[in-house]
């Protein structure tokens, strides 16, 4: 039987960005001298050639319908110069060649519901995941939690009044696709997976599921006469690593999958070396559509930091200065035994000194 003629892909890879660059960006490529920020949400870059370019940054919802994208394009054609880019946090940036264009562009973006900001010492848009909208393993949603949180943080997106830049992320499982951040909201499961023994043999490659477990708590077993898997629940720390390769090991639980808060991640090398974030709270309910308990705790931590940190201190720098006991004291968060690290390398996270703040 003749196969239908299939189109062969053009394996072109990453496209050249030169064709999309604003002409001033192309002309001054690699030759920029400095920048300043005339107002929050606006960057002004000056080249060694003397050329200047203004950038207006605005927040988006990331998961955008084509009508929203076309609206952003209309604004770009009518009030900017047809060249845009996106930041790693889904903000859109319009580049223009004259300062006169900034005011009308800012006004149009705000009038159409796109907040202008996210520059300098602001709280930028939250890096986030897919959640219930599109992921196959999520315990919660991403876009909704982010929308609810940004509704409450928007004034600190529009202004540059934080001690230093603030980067947030959310993640719908412990894989943490949202990534390291000054403050991250991440699912924390609290019960071992519930196994559907009828399905394991047909769906799961059992040895590789066994191999995925970080604490070797999973072993092959015959259950009700069927080849399946069983879990040593005294060892299981409920990470959910077994769930993606074996969906019958259901880890998500509407009640027992909680949300945890992590703080102090920093990828920049500025001042101290990059840091990983630390868990400071858990047990928050997965409470759609607006997750008010999460928002309240995030705001509590962010505004304690805002009030207490010195200029240029990122979350991690602030905590390094005041110490963890005072972090918990100032935020009012309980320091529980679950926050004492016991994973490999954990002794490095204990206080091997008499450095104690009284």
């Amino acid at each position, binding site marked *: 039987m003749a196969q239908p003629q299939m189109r062969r892909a053009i394996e072109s*890879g990453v496209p*050249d960005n030169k064709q999309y660059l604003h002409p001033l960006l192309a002309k001054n490529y690699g030759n920029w001298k400095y920048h300043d920020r005339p107002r929050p949400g606006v960057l002004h870059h000056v080249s060694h050639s003397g050329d200047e370019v203004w950038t207006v940054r605005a927040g988006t919802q990331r*998961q955008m319908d084509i009508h929203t994208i076309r609206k952003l394009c209309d604004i770009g054609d009518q009030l900017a110069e047809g060249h845009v880019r996106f930041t790693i946090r889904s903000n859109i940036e319009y580049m223009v060649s004259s300062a006169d264009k900034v005011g009308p562009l800012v006004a149009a973006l705000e009038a159409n519901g796109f907040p202008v900001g996210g520059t300098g010492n602001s709280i930028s848009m939250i890096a986030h995941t897919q959640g219930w909208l599109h992921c*196959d393993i999520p315990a919660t*949603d991403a876009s909704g939690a982010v929308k609810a949180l940004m509704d409450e943080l928007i004034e600190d997106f529009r202004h540059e009044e934080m001690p230093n830049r603030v980067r947030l992320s959310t993640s719908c499982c412990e894989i943490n696709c949202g990534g*390291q951040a000054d403050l991250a909201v991440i699912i924390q499961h609290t019960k071992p997976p519930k196994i559907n023994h009828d399905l394991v043999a047909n769906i799961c490659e059992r040895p590789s599921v066994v*191999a*995925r477990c970080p604490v070797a708590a999973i072993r092959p077993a015959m259950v009700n006469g069927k080849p399946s898997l069983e879990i040593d629940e005294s060892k299981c720390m409920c990470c959910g690593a077994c769930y993606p390769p074996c969906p019958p090991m259901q880890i998500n639980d509407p009640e027992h999958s909680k949300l945890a808060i992590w703080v102090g991640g920093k990828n920049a090398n500025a001042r101290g070396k990059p840091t990983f974030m630390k868990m400071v709270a858990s047990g928050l309910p997965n409470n759609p559509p607006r997750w008010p308990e999460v928002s309240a705790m995030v705001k509590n931590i962010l505004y304690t930091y805002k009030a207490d940190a010195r200029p*240029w201190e990122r979350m991690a720098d602030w905590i390094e200065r005041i110490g963890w006991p005072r972090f918990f004291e100032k935020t009012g968060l309980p320091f529980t035994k679950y926050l004492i690290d016991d994973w490999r390398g954990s002794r490095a996270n204990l206080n091997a000194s008499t450095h104690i703040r009284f």
Partner: protein
Amino acid sequence: MAKKLHDTPNLDQLESGPWPSFVTGIKRLAQNNDMAVDLLGQLETSYRTRKGYWKGGTVGVYGYGGGIIPRFTELKDDNGEPIYKDAAEFHTLRVMPPPGMHYTTDVLRKMCDIWEKHGSGLIALHGQSGDIMFQGATTDNVQKAFDEINEMGFDLGGAGPAVRTSMSCVGSARCEQSCFDEAKAHRAVVNTFLDDMHRPSLPYKFKFKFSGCPNDCMNSIQRSDMAVIGTWRDNIRTDEVLAKKWFVKHGQDELVNDIVARCPTRTFQLKQIKDVRKGEHISSVAVNDTHAIEIDNKDCVRCMHCINVMTGALAPGKDKGATILMGGKRTLKIGDLMGTVVVPFMKLETDEDMEKLVDLGQRTIDFFAENALEHERTGEMIERIGLANFLEAMELEVDPNMVASPRMNPYVRTDGWDEEVAKINARKQSATTQGE
């Protein structure tokens, strides 16, 4: 006109408030798009039950083994029929963006037109790996959408155990801190590994990321198996006009408290002009008639802080290049790993320099493919075999810049010590005779 909207009392609550609403956007699509109507139905169900209802599967485009994220609904009625049948197949195309995520409005409009015709109309700019995510196509439409996107000059990204889509910062296009041509390096490297991207057959994922300076705006040190981070070897550059302008605006207290006190190696000092040292490795610039900044570049770790605070007045040097770090990843399986230095500095200016970078990537991926266990990331593999063994396999020379400190335990067999010293001395000798 599409079919009637389902009641979505939960999602409706995400339409109020000042931040742009994805729910409002999907509802706009739902006015003439049944897939969007049923997507809202399924999502509302998730909000009500607090459960996810998508499962993966096998959907692809002709000739490729990855790049499509298949999604089939698991919400079925008693007869096994999908409850929200028009969103029963809701696959995503991962498409690689241009470096720095630059677009013209024209190219964005073309993407919208394609996705209006073949998909749900929902596009994420961008996913966490950096892809343009065309979200929501039926199995039949995936190939059609890809063909048109591909004809526009765009290609699928990675998924599964493959080289993944990469990201690079705005960099040289619009940033004064850029230390190499990020876009050029990004394309040179990733476009070498398209076979490993489009036909997943590695032990696990492999990510490259490119940041133009140590501010690492792409978060490459924590999120990529091979991080290319710009840096420089010579002295910090200075500009007296901008330094004095900064000082007039900010004053001495800010200079002392925000910069001097925050320099991680205390090499940034404020001195009377008459006391400023001269020398090959000293950068200095007056901030007023009596005082100047002095930086001993031999003690500077290129952290970027002073340059961030006084941008323009201070700038990275001219002898630019990149530091290469390997092994960054998030928790699963053995815990978080930060990328660590494997090449303290390499130039990235000429085509030959770029070839060396590509070659390093090639050797790393080859070694990873042969030696990593299934589902083991590069950092975990290095942890298992030890950095020294990895370096030896990669023919990279050991360097004290690769460690935070030397070994803290005696559990090592050192009977090859004299031989190693001899090798190092021979290398030094040959470097001297070559006049490096």
